[in-house]
């Protein structure tokens, strides 16, 4: 039973900024189906009294003191920037807002 449609794969691909070819959409719809089915099986086993696990470690409240450390030197910050100007990252024109 196919639960993931080709359109859904296309939509998620857009959200994740992944450029997929038509044949990849078909293939991934099938592969994601298998994954979703596998998770559905787990859901059948899980009962309401078993809380979902988001963290495998039995740890809580790992905090840091509010004490500053020296920052990364600005040359290092910008070292991996494809382009920069006046100490800032230069990025292409931003579209789709406003």
């Amino acid at each position: 039973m196919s639960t993931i449609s080709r359109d859904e794969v296309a939509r998620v691909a857009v959200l994740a900024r992944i450029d997929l070819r038509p044949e990849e959409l078909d293939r991934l719809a099938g592969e994601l189906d298998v994954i979703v089915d596998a998770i559905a099986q787990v859901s059948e086993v899980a009962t309401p009294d078993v809380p979902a696990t988001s963290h495998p470690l039995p740890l809580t409240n790992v905090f840091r003191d509010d004490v500053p450390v020296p920052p990364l030197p600005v040359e290092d910050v910008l070292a991996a920037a494809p382009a920069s100007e006046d100490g800032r990252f230069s990025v292409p024109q931003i579209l789709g807002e406003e």
Partner: protein
Amino acid sequence: MSAHATVDLVDYDEAVRRYDPVIGIEVHVELGTKTKMFCAAEVEFGGEPNTQVTPVSLGLPGALPVVNGKAVEYAIKIGLALNCQIAESCRFARKNYFYPDVPKNFQTSQYDEPIAFDGYLDVELEDGTIFRVDIERAHMEEDAGKNTHVGGSTGRIHGAEYSLVDYNRAGIPLVEIVTRPITGAGERAPEVARAYVQTLRDIFRALDVSEARMERGNVRADVNLSLRATPESPLGTRTETKNVNSFRSIERAVRYEVSRQAAVLDEGGTVIQETRHWHEDTSITTAGRVKSDAEDYRYFPEPDLVPVAPSRDWVEQIRATLPELPVARRNRLQGEWGYADAEMRDVVNAGALDLIEATVAAGASPAAARKWWMGELARYAKTSETELAEIAVTPTQIAQLQALVDSGRINDKLARQVLEGVLAGEGDPEAVVVARGLEVVSDDGALLTAIDAALAAQPDIVEKVRSGNMGPIGAIIGAVMKATKGQADAGRVRELVIERIG
């Protein structure tokens, strides 16, 4: 885009007669911690670009976040001040989206488990009405970096050739406070919205969790608004006006959206659920992107951070440190001082509350403290275009000044001259009195000399007073006050004049 298109608007009063506005407000407050939410980069306003970043701020591969404990404490403080429940356990979540100011391609936030929930805030409106706003949740998250758009004529995104990004702000701790739909405000919806955000701002300052400066973007509001036919109708479709960053704009943005949506509905149209941008310069909103569904953000639990489970002991310790909140303090002070409601409102609006409290603490009566700060000093602040709190006189000096009046050493008129001297930097009231020789002439001998001179100069008045017409006596007193350069006690002069004539 649509910024310059003409938009139909219905007159506001007309709109609220026919539609019931429902608002919802999201407020982001930047916490005043020394370091960021998930890394120890120092937070300092106005630093050179990208000088307050670490690998975590930049989302570099392998960088691991660690929660700032102080930020959690501040978030709990805010939650408690808003009468919220504090979660026994909560976790962070990733909110995934692509935008250059979010270097990790996700914002670390909280989704299904906010640290605080189910609270309320009582907001006082201008006429003293208390309006209760229900709080749905307050959650922890991080701020984004700052884009500067280059090219184009206006510096806005539209027409820009490229953008420059500074990540100093990326990762600064934020608490986002979300209301439940605020109903029942009716035509006062704009005022309620403004008063709510203003009250929050006051609370952030009282809690000392943020500098809460609107003009620096420490507090930012997103205002949701929808209209429905009647208070019994289901909620209408809402728009979310982003980044309305002054109290005045909050009020105006609500009014504008009421007028705009009413026009859309009047024409039988439907309001589009979308983000709208507030334009400070033109006081209008324009359409932004159609709002994403929550599922488009593909939230999932942040695997790099373990849950936050504040012990009940810790929560109670924090609760015990909560200062008296502004509304409670105002009510207490009003009771102690015996001010009328209108007097108290004027004092608060003038920013004189702290000053009067300090003046009273320094020994002045509440009535005298109010008289000075709301009278002479308020006028002085206005003419010199300064804030009351900024003028060059301290509450202690005002209390000293009043003590001089109460002891009879100076009268009200002289007190104003003494105040002039204090404001001119001539020292404390006592020093000004001595230096300027402003003491009341209490020596009867000196007064009598002046009185005799005045009586001799105006014999006709003496006659009138002798025949029982007390009216003209003021002219004699005036002449004596003039002769003593105002340094006489007018009451004593009157007594002496009557004695002399009598």
